[in-house]
């Protein structure tokens, strides 16, 4: 049973187009979802082309508005610069301590692979995996805290999967959640192309999910990779 998910997103919009449907599906079944946004995406994720000005406050309130549609429990903005994203060790430990305090059953972040179109994603995956390792380990960086039981880490699909050497490991049928996902994307104005792309990718993933994947009636799906082995079910996870 998944009761809590921690999401680590490089830019605040990433988690919505990569996993908005899946997160909404979980949140509807009562699962808490805590998002950590490493940057505000002011450089690579601001609709400069369509609006003259997008302040930090505006951007954050757009993300909060989209998140509330998806029933996201909390969004923590760490406010690092993006393009390029760099986080010092104390920042990584801060993320580890949030993971530790939240005590999630799943961690969701960028896929642990190359991403040439947006190297920040690659960096974010590395940071999230490092932070998770710290949270899982027994050493005393996080004072007086029990270690977090190691949990599976799943990765978002990158924009160019083949170039990134990325292979989908899990397909999630998001057909009933698709409308809400697309609605959430409209709360981030200026991303018309991204919105079309998200829709196409969900259709594309449904080709496999409803075909060889055998999920009848799946019209929209999201795909994820795993970066840690899954052990504790005691069976093949299917």
């Amino acid at each position, binding site marked *: 049973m998944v009761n809590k998910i921690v999401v680590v997103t490089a830019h605040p919009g990433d988690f919505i187009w990569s996993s908005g449907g899946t997160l909404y599906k979980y949140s509807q079944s009562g699962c808490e979802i805590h998002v950590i946004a490493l940057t505000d995406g002011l450089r690579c994720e601001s609709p400069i082309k369509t609006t003259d000005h997008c302040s930090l406050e505006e951007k954050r309130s757009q993300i909060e508005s989209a998140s509330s549609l998806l029933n996201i429990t909390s969004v923590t903005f760490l406010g690092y610069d993006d393009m390029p994203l760099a986080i010092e060790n104390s920042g990584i430990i801060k993320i580890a301590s949030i993971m530790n305090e939240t005590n999630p059953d799943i961690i969701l972040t960028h896929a642990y692979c190359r991403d040439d179109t947006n190297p920040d994603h690659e960096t974010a995956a590395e940071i999230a995996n490092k932070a998770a390792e710290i949270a899982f380990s027994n050493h005393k960086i996080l004072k007086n805290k029990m270690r977090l039981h190691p949990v599976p880490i799943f990765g978002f699909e990158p924009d160019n999967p*083949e170039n990134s050497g990325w292979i*989908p490991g899990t397909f999630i049928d998001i057909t009933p959640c698709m409308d809400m996902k697309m609605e959430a994307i409209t709360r981030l104005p200026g991303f018309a*192309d991204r919105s079309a792309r998200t829709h*196409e990718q969900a259709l*594309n993933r449904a080709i496999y999910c409803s075909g*060889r994947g055998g999920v009848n009636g799946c019209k929209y799906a999201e795909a994820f990779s795993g970066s840690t082995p899954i052990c504790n079910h005691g069976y093949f996870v299917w």
Partner: protein
Amino acid sequence: MNKRILVVSGHVGDFVWRSGGTIASYVKMGCEVHLLVFTLGIRGESNGYWKSEGANYEEARRLRRREGEEAAKILGIKTVEIHDFVDYPLELDRARIEMIAKKIRKYKIDIVITHDHKTDLFNADHTLIGNTINMACAMASSSSLALGNLGPIPRPSVYGFEPHNPEFCDFSPDVFVDITEVIDIKKQAMQVYAKTQKNMIEPYITKSKIRAFQSQMARCEYAEAFSIIYSANNFQL
């Protein structure tokens, strides 16, 4: 541009889904495109047909051959050679490989477009063809190999089709071809297969939109992706 192109398709629908737009745009540029199809896809790629009542091999063969010919006509392909080899699994023996090499020599082919040579877990016929065609190209350009009275030709470039499930097949989209201008022709060609492979039409329109996005070409709405199997100095598609 007057390049001579050979498209080698395992089953009778492959050349349309995977390269229909590229074929149409080459034809538009004045190139001659030749088509070689090995199988009618009776066993592996006629799922829609086998669901219909009274389905039988004879009708399937007639239907599928007609589809291939009609689609090739819509795309503007110059010569069409459709074989009825058994598919799933396809076998390509020495005689068949020499037949391909002869064809490449006969038409003095510059570019071959065919299935990717990397392992397609879902379709072994495609993997076999990708590897075999590259061999046939090497044979066609070998000066020490006699094939009837046809002399050797310069080594053609070989480009690989996008497989149905690219990430699982180690496919690398090395070249994107903008097919926005000819998308209506491709759609029309795909529509020919409505009886036998209806489920392929929408997915392949979706895929071409995604490839257009990834190509980052301005004003490109639809694109097809290919891998480079062999690049023979004419690094263009």
